[in-house]
């Protein structure tokens, strides 16, 4: 019997994959895709909770709809940035950046 924990574990695995991609990808677009994976895992959690346990079930789904709207806008802005940078210097690599400068 499939229950709440199964869905939560799928969400956790998706979150971990997204986090791994976020930390290890060189390409700005790939980093954005990893963040989308993380947001999807949040949405799985919210919908699963609203199906199985929440007292206010609708709120969970409303929350994930807000997340979807914001995520779509985030991708649009991120790609605009990627394209603007690409036109200037022919690369969207984030690797030359010194991420942990003190």
């Amino acid at each position, binding site marked *: *019997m499939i229950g709440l924990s199964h869905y939560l574990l799928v969400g956790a695995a998706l979150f971990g994959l997204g986090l791994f991609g976020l930390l290890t990808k060189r390409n700005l677009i790939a980093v954005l895709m990893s963040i989308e994976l993380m947001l999807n895992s949040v949405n799985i959690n919210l919908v699963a909770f609203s199906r199985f346990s929440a007292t206010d079930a609708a709120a969970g789904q409303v929350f994930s709809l807000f997340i979807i709207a914001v*995520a779509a806008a985030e991708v649009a802005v991120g790609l605009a940035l990627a394209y603007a940078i690409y036109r200037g210097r022919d690369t969207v690599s984030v690797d030359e950046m010194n991420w942990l400068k003190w």
Partner: protein
Amino acid sequence: MENGGLMHTLAFFLLSGITLAAAMGVVFKRNLVHSAFLLSVTFLGVAGLYMTLQAEFMAAVQALVYSGAVAVLVVIGVMLTHRQQMSRSNPPNKMLLVGALAALSVVGAIVWAILATPWKVGKGSVVTAGDIGRRFLTDFAPPFEAVALLLLAALIGAVVLFKGGKAQS
């Protein structure tokens, strides 16, 4: 889909398998175009999972917005920013080990939290699109309006960022 039946179990494992396999492809594939298309598959898999959770409206939105708009946008972005070799367009950086350790420890903590917490699983409730719509326009009206502003800001922002890049060439 009724919860608990054999069909439900099968559908869950099939869909979560597809979702996670595709997500692994997104992260591990060396070709950015493959990653982008697998991202779309991941989104559709998640939409399927929403169906098994009887959240039909969420599934529809997921398929339309994520798979239909976001994934296509990402593919266009990939096409616009890579004109040469595509086969090695998505390489990892030098932090593979650190990244793997960090991700694993976070996931470990989350999995522990999920398994060790006694969730109060009730009878469960199914949410209809009508419920969601009513909540959007009553309780959640302020964030609803704010998201409208946010989309406008993103729209203006895309143009501004684009112009900012233009000035340099």
